[in-house]
């Protein structure tokens, strides 16, 4: 990886995630397919007898509480009947279906990736095997705030 790559990525992360409030909040952004859609999500630990809900390998396990408004009738977007939320790896290779999303509050889960994109798509059924319709809202897990310090002066021994 070049320094320029990391620099660009850091800038992107810094500028993308400066709007949220805490370690559990995800601001959702709409797309040209759904200019009226608005949303916000909050990660809430899944039920657990322990102080924190994690998987056996230590990843946090969250229910995702999505508050959405302005979602159009899915049928207006094509042959779709519902909206579905997915937790997606940041390289877009793995899509984990979380559950059905409507206007108002929907609780879906569990999201169990270290860093993930929260993507809401239009689908023809509430339990599709794979995503097929257009994205109408998307955001990034707060862990996406993590920054690379590879090019940071602090680690290069430069005067601050």
């Amino acid at each position: 990886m070049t320094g320029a790559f990391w620099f660009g990525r850091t800038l992107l992360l810094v500028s993308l995630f400066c709007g949220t409030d805490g370690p559990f909040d995800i601001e959702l952004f709409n797309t040209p397919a759904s200019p009226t859609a608005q949303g916000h999500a909050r990660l809430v630990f899944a039920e657990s007898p322990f102080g924190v809900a994690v998987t056996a390998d230590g990843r946090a396990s969250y229910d995702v509480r999505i508050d959405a408004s302005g979602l159009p009738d899915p049928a207006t977007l094509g042959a779709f009947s519902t909206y579905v939320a997915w937790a997606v790896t940041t390289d877009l290779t793995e899509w984990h279906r979380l559950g059905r999303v409507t206007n108002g509050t929907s609780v879906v889960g569990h999201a169990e990736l270290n860093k993930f994109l929260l993507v809401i798509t239009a689908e023809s059924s509430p339990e599709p095997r794979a995503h097929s319709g257009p994205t109408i809202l998307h955001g990034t897990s707060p862990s996406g705030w993590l920054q690379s310090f590879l090019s940071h002066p602090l680690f290069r021994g430069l005067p601050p």
Partner: protein
Amino acid sequence: MFRLPCAAALLAVLAVPASAQNSAPAKKSPAMPGMSGMRGMRGMRDSSRVGTRGTTSKRKKTTSPVAGGAPMAMTAGADMEGMAMPVPMPKGMPMIPGLVGLTPAVTSFLPGVGVDSRSLPVAMASRLTRLRNGDTLDLTAMLVRRTIKGHSYVMYAFNGQSPGPLIRVPQNASITVRFHNRIDLPSAVHWHGVRLDNRFDGVPGLTQAEVASGKDFTYTVHFPDAGFYWYHPHVREDIQQAMGLFGNMRVDAPEPEYYSPVNREQTLVLNDILINGDTLIPFGKESADYALMGRVGNVLLVNGEPRYSLRAQKGDVVRFFITNVASSRTFNLSFGGAPIKIVASDVSRFEREERVASVVIAPAERYIVEVRFDRPGRFTIVNAVQSINHYLGEFTSEVDTLGSVAVAAVPAAHDFGAQFAALRANDAVSRDIARYRKYFDKAPDKTLTLTVAANTLPLATVQFMNVDTAYFAPVEWVDGMPDMNWLSTARQVRWILRDDATGQENMNIDWHVAQRSVVKIRIFNDPKSFHPMQHPIHLHGQRMLVIARDGVATKNLVWKDTALIPVGSTVDLLVDASNPGVWMLHCHIAEHLEAGMMTAIHVDSVAAGAGR
């Protein structure tokens, strides 16, 4: 809203000269050692000192880093001259150059100053000590010689045992413990989780005077609740607990079927210790070091040993009584894929048994679980977590092996598979808790915010913290920044419990509640502080329920004395203020406690018959 840390991060990135941004990151140089970085540290020292900010250090001036009086024989082979920075760094995490060459502004301390280690007894494993009502136990905190991974160290033990004696008593017993302090620090014994008489709670400055070295104190310990507890000093836990002073107490309920039948029972005391090569990392004498995150050891121990092993037969169900006595580390324990059933925690059984994938246990917590080894072979007990590399901004999966269970092909003598498969409902627990449900929805009686303040930390630490606070994990499982952490002392860092209503902090909070009242405490762990971190909050002498986390009601309740508060979380505790006296409420990360994160609740006596 454009948050300040974001702005700072953006500016910091923009401020990097183009040449610096484009040059390849320093990597795999000798200056970036792995977990045993002494040689690398030495290589780094000369050039890096140029940028050092001139922080003076008693340690550097007056002692070698491994000094503190540990006999030289104990550290044979260590190259002390080279240890300008004896802190092992995680793999791939370089030190901030601005910190290299600095040492914490405290004098080094290790147990056994001036003592010939060869004169000390060799530490033994914990032994079961069964006591009846009225019995007396002599409990001596003493110096011992302990060998860990082939290297010998002077450490502490109770009665020569580390963990100390496993005290097993029937419920409602009272015992006398004659405590003899024969270590080189003042001490006292706290009986963690036990609702005993306040004057025997073992908190110097609050319930008793420190027991000076060579002196004694007699405790009466009454055990009103069945369960699994532990004892440890409440003086400089960052040193005394870390060096071996802890032990368990098991209180047996009269009902023979209190727990399900199992093939065997085991105690697992989880701990870690910080060692560089063959050298213990010294402690701060005047105040604790590692004040930011607490001391996170790099050698994980079960029952005092780096490897735990157990032999079992196919189909055996084993009940594990687990305690986390580490200063700071939260564990995520699993048993090689063997099914786990959670049964009980600090002060009671759960309302309902549950299947779990792993056991998350913060410092001072206890969990009792049953595990079935249903096929022959080796089951590896691991601590599996996701660490954050703050340098790369990435998560890394970390798996530490704690031990193993070798399961023979011979079937279990008794097959308890059916009992293991059943998830019991403990109606007695639910009935007990039902009496408190009417208080669940009341407004909090007290709201506390957890935060931190710091001063005179090295500039590079402050700068890193300022730009790195964009995200903090709910739980930091490992120490991702040992250099910064090591250099922070309890004089520079003040961890805070703040009363939202009055603004008062820590011991300045004037807090009285009536005996037999039910007190709802809401605790918020502020994620926007200088360095947010999870806190296991412990209340002495009472029992409490974690009734909600982040507004979500707890569905399966259990009586606790310690509750983990993740970063950014709000946790509602319901305290059964049954036991009169003045009781500590504090973080059980030893260094956070040393850095002030404690308050006291006065539970004022009410004549019998009065109250709620």
